[in-house]
């Protein structure tokens, strides 16, 4: 990508209350059911500030549900979720405030279809952060330039390629100056040749110290950018390890089986 300059800083000054490495997202004994289906089984996970945690696992293992429950797009039946020291509110204004601090990037991008790219990026800052339109536009353009789509600012999402849309979605999340960003399979809906332009932006973010929880099938990204890999299967966390350790010597049979299937083609 010639449009983006990897040396640029994507991140503003962090405003979290915990120091680097201190727990920012803490899940304790989380259980979730879809009807009779037990999709999250006693999940315990702590993500420190500045940490990049990659969640991998077979389809239906509950990794997307886990990701979505952290900003309460899915509700959990028992257990606790703490973000930056305070428990996840159950509804109303407090929940909206929390969500403003937790960025989310979806598999299907979910850009606001009736708004221009720039409006997508400025809506949150103006309506939620109460920034002035001018300030939001200036900051929004800066972010769009940094993810390499500044020249598309006045277009509508449907006029952009998938990779461009996903980079806009990342800029939209960054515009809120979030404490952590959740990525729910951000490259799974992309054509192969567009995956890297999105991963490049994510790697850049990771290197600049953004706290990230990334559900993905991109093992290359996990190796390059992750501080820790979490392996899930059937709603349980089976393994947690540094990427190198996990990929070279997984301990559970389930993980060995999974890796042998994805790494041997």
């Amino acid at each position, binding site marked *: 990508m010639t449009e983006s300059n990897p040396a640029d800083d994507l991140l503003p000054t962090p405003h979290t209350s915990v120091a680097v490495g201190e727990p920012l997202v803490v899940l304790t004994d989380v259980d979730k059911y879809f009807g009779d289906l037990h999709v999250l089984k006693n999940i315990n996970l702590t993500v420190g500030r500045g940490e990049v945690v990659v969640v991998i696992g077979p389809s239906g293992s509950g990794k997307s549900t886990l990701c979505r429950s952290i*900003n309460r*797009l899915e509700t959990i039946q028992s257990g606790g979720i703490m973000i930056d020291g305070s428990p996840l509110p159950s509804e*109303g*204004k407090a929940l*909206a*405030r*929390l*969500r*403003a*601090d*937790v*960025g*989310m990037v*979806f598999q*299907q991008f*979910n*850009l*606001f*279809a*009736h708004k221009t790219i720039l409006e997508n990026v400025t*809506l*949150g800052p103006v*309506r*939620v952060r109460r920034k002035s339109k001018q300030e939001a536009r200036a900051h929004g353009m800066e972010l769009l330039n940094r993810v390499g789509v500044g020249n598309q600012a006045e277009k*509508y*999402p*449907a*006029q952009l390629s998938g990779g461009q849309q996903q980079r806009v979605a990342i800029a*939209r*999340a960054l515009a*809120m100056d979030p404490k952590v960003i959740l990525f729910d399979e951000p490259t799974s809906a992309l054509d192969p040749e567009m995956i890297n332009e999105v991963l490049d932006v994510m790697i850049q973010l990771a290197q600049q110290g953004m706290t990230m929880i990334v559900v993905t099938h991109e093992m290359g990204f996990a190796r390059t950018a992750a501080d820790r890999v979490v392996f899930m299967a059937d709603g349980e966390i089976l393994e947690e390890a540094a990427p190198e350790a996990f990929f070279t010597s997984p301990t559970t049979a389930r993980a060995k089986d999974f890796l042998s299937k994805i790494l041997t083609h």
Partner: protein
Amino acid sequence: MGELADLITRYHVLLAFWMTVRLTTISALGALIIGTIVAVCRVSPVGVLRWFGAAYVNVIRNTPLTLIVFFFAFGVLNTLSISLADPHSPTSIADNNFRWGVVALSVYHASFVAESLRSGVNTVPLGQAEAARAIGLSFVPSLTEVILPQAFRGAIAPLGNTLVALTKNSTVVSTIGVAEIAYQMKNMIEFSPHLLYAIFLLVAICFVVLTLPVGAFFTYLSRRVAVQR
């Protein structure tokens, strides 16, 4: 032909036509406002509001318009004496009939507007609402900024249908003495029965002149503002 032209001036057909236009536009605005509120109730997370929205649509949509018009004219205006016009004004009776007619038309067509909008809301993918919530918008701003603007675009064609129906249904208020086209048609037929077919044709043309462009405009609009996905 001369006789018909005479009728048109004698029975103030142009004025009656203008009355139909006013009835239609004001009632359309009223129906849009009430209908939007009802539709928002129907998709809201609050159980009581959802119940109210569903009850409104089911009761009003399944009640004949004539009954609703009579309810407001005789039940509310005459019996309960709730007036919407200055009682000392010389046109007090006509004003009251017109205004309660508008209320009746608005209330009735709001149920169709609400259903059109709800179908519009269903054209908006769930991910749009999730993305709105994910950037910290609460229920009302995600509705006004993200869901409704897309829902209106998706609902334009059915809203156009409702407006065409409303235009023609406005003839029902002739029953409570609002001097619109159908009211004057009845008078003209009564006093010039030999021109029966010419009068029918005249009134039909009046409505076609109104509804045909409306239909064409809404079809154009629904293509023009459609949300690209």
